[in-house]
């Protein structure tokens, strides 16, 4: 891993404008003084009627929270990445294999993977999240037990794999065989749920930049997931976050790993196409 002691340089890279606007700020994010993050990008073509620009949730956080993400020594999420590195190299299951037995050095074999997930899996003929692929590797490849969906082990392995793509723009495919799933995700994104009768779009498309109580609403992008949340000092997966947001509409949520959340993950990821993979980002 490239843990570099460049705190001072990283601090300089995060420029702090004096004005605190309600909208996204103009700060720039360079991690470890070397990985330049694309935190604002022209909206992908499928959003042309809706948004001009897609914006990382990093822009909506306080300066203190933002700066934690600029250096791996200050990013509490990196502890979990290190733990996942141990998991990567640990033999597990009946076949006596580790992840490394098949994939070698994670820094080489997993580069670019996070940027294209979720993606169509030809042999399984369905859209696969990274989590589904990891569990297939565990059960079929290693003869081990699957990990709990959105659980702590899963979240940290997703973080380790995501780190290998940091800075690369998200680029999930939404056409071809993935299209039906993407359409389902889109429908869910715009469906109002619960007694508060709110959809993802009510908060993250119509009202990003506004505050709900003390929360500064972002576009609800997933390029930073899994994220480290200061609130509970753990990594949260995208499905975990979706669940919390749906619950907050006073609705019955979907389950992490459900077909609905898989479809929503693909759709929401596609809304962030062009933004850099940031995981593990830091959020409040």
């Amino acid at each position: 891993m490239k843990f570099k002691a460049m705190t001072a340089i990283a601090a300089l890279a995060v420029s702090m404008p004096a004005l605190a606007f309600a909208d996204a700020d103009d700060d720039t994010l360079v991690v470890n003084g070397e990985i330049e993050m694309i935190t604002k990008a022209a909206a992908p073509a499928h959003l042309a009627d809706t948004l001009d620009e897609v914006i990382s949730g990093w822009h909506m956080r306080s300066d203190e929270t933002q700066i934690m993400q600029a250096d791996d020594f200050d990013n509490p999420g990196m502890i979990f990445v290190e733990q996942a590195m141990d998991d990567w190299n640990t033999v597990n299951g009946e076949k006596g294999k580790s992840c490394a037995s098949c994939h070698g050095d994670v820094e080489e074999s997993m580069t670019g993977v996070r940027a294209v997930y979720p993606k169509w899996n030809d042999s399984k003929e369905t859209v696969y999240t990274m989590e589904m692929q990891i569990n297939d590797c565990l059960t079929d490849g290693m003869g081990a037990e699957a990990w709990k969906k959105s659980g702590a082990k899963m979240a940290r392995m997703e973080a380790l794999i995501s780190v290998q793509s940091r800075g690369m723009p998200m680029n999930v495919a939404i056409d071809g065989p993935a299209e039906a799933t993407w359409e389902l995700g889109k429908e869910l994104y715009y469906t109002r749920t619960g007694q508060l009768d709110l959809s993802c779009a009510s908060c993250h498309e119509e009202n990003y930049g506004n505050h709900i109580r003390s929360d500064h609403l972002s576009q609800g992008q997933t390029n930073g997931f899994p994220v480290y949340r200061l609130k509970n000092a753990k990594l949260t997966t995208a499905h975990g976050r979706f669940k919390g947001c749906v619950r907050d509409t006073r609705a019955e949520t979907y389950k992490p790993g459900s077909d609905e959340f898989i479809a929503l993950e693909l759709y929401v990821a596609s809304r962030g196409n062009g933004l850099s993979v940031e995981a593990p980002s830091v959020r409040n």
Partner: protein
Amino acid sequence: MKLSILTLAVTLTAGAAMAGPVAPADVAYTEDGAVEASLSGMAGNVENGSKVMTTKSLGNCVACHQISALSHAPFHGTVGPSLDGVADRWTEAELRGILTNSKLTYEGTVMPAYYVVDGFTRPGNGYTGKAAEGPLDPLLSAQQIEDVIAFLATLKE
């Protein structure tokens, strides 16, 4: 146990005899979404109204609206317009309509309907994330809505 159920039953009967709160399904809306009559049949209490508006588990109006008169409560949101001077813009009946079912005044608004109990997708059991058990209660009671309207009526410029 038995005693309190009995007391409750008596109170309910007495309330009904006095033409108590109108049920959410029976609210009479004008063509423009206003509601002329008090939902509870009684006047509202200004102080309770301000409590309902600032309390997270009740109206939580400040989550979306800024209200200078309630600046003692922290973190007013910006999703909705400022409510300062709202009584100059709307009549009491219109304000009651906005609160009872905001969607009849503003099509497609993100403001919740505080006195509607059906027509929702996947209604939950409060904020538990679990499915609702049985019929929903409105987000606010008839009297709480009247209290909020009494408070809003004081917001003149």
